[in-house]
């Protein structure tokens, strides 16, 4: 469904990704793990088009994503939940969700999608008229995920959805992600919470210093000596 082939990417003069290659099949839940500054967020930004790669290719369902502007990539079926959610705090919960369905294909099915999202996150329905800036951290994260789902993506990319949440909310967030994946949305999950991510993932990639240094099923990576000693000790 999605493949990255030898992606190089830089911020000004600093190269952040070196020949990153990845594959995601339809229906999978793929985890991308690694330490801070490894290039996980950069990888997501390259896929969503916010950062254009300096080398390599990104293909998604026969489209060359590295040649498409970011707003077109959403229309092709990829939604990204950015780090810490980035909800529109000066707008209501409902307005945030409406904006999630901005692309024309999603706009037509807006009311049906809204019911689906409210089914997954009943809390958002209770808070529909409230300003997003008044929500708690967990609710904001729900809103950010719900907003991304409003575009009816084929591939949902989540950038550290559990970051900054209380432990009980972290478990809930992972359950939500698993549930969304079971409903047929392919998921690419970037996580610091490595054990939980690997237990849930169909497959996973380990990124260090801008390079892929390990890949396999979630369980395989859990048993990697390097992963165990560095992240799970």
């Amino acid at each position, binding site marked *: 469904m999605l493949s990255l082939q030898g992606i190089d990417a830089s911020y000004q003069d600093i190269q952040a990704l070196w020949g990153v290659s990845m594959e995601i099949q339809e229906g999978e839940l793929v985890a991308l793990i690694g330490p801070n500054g490894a290039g996980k967020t950069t990888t997501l930004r390259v896929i*969503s*088009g*916010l950062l254009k790669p300096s080398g390599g290719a990104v293909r998604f369902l026969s489209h060359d994503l590295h040649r498409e*502007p*970011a*707003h*077109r990539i*959403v*229309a092709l079926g990829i*939604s*990204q939940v*950015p780090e810490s959610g*980035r*909800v*529109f*705090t*000066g*707008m209501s919960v409902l*307005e945030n969700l*409406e*904006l*999630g369905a*901005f*692309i024309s294909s*999603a*706009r037509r099915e807006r009311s049906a999608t809204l019911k689906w999202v409210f089914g997954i996150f009943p809390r958002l329905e209770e808070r529909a008229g409230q300003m997003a*800036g008044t929500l708690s951290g967990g609710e904001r994260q729900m809103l950010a995920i719900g*907003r*991304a789902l409003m*575009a009816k993506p084929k591939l949902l990319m989540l950038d550290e959805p559990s970051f900054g949440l209380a432990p009980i909310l972290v478990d809930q967030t992972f359950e939500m992600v698993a549930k969304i994946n079971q409903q047929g949305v392919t998921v690419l999950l970037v996580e610091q919470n490595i054990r939980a991510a690997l237990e849930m993932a169909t497959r996973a990639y380990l990124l260090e210093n801008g390079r892929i240094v390990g890949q396999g099923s979630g369980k395989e990576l859990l048993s990697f000596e390097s992963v165990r000693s560095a992240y799970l000790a």
Partner: protein
Amino acid sequence: MLESVSQTLILGVLVGALYALVALGLSLVFGVTKFLNVAHGELLMFGGYASFWVFSLLGLDPFLTIPTTLIGLTLIGAILYQLVFVRMVKLPEEAKIKNTLLVGFGLSVILQNLALRFWSADDRGITASYSSMAFTVLGVRLPLVRLASLLTALVFLLALHLFLRKTYTGKAIRATVQDWEAATLMGIDIHRVYFLAFVLGAALAGVAGTLVAVNYSIEPSMGLNWTLKALIVMVLGGLGSITGTLVGGLLLGLTESITSLLLSSNYREVVGLVLFVLILIFRPQGLFGTKEG
């Protein structure tokens, strides 16, 4: 005495609503694109001439020239954006403000000279057949043209407010103001949002120009004065709020008219600039400004 005070206050409100409309376009453009287009006053001047043209060639009622002026200024805005401003979209915010300031200054000189060529340096005005008519309420004179201008200004302020609150495109504009990167991730093409905001800003400058031509007069070098008024109102009201723009306009109008009553009309122009400096020193986010739209 009481009558002259209430006359002063009423006049302040009437002028203030016009000031709010003058600032509305500039504030919208700056809020969305961070372009500080100091040629805003020249766009207003072109709007005034557009209405003057239609008024004198077709003999239309001054207020009925507004639709053609809107169309004309939309086109001028679109051309200026595609020729000049589109090149500055990708700059970081600070460079954007500085570069558009310089470019806007250059543009204002070019537009002034174009106007000189087309229409000469003569003062022009639009005099409606009913321009001497006025209502008198409790001893206060309410000129009909001023009232119609007030109504026009309020209609455009309200229309923009509703557009930004109620329509999908309006919400996309607000989302872009708050977080353009998150807006991009919603599939919003922020280049189109920038273009739209700029063109809307030019059209709003155009209507303001019509009202200026009807209430005062127009000539090629008038732009700077109106750009300054718009900047003062923008700073008073804070960015990103239409209510703030309206209140800022009213405040400036009232301050000016009270100054001319208490001191002398010679100080009218100065007092706005003094206010401008005081606000920038003590409350740079504006009287009602917040960080969020």
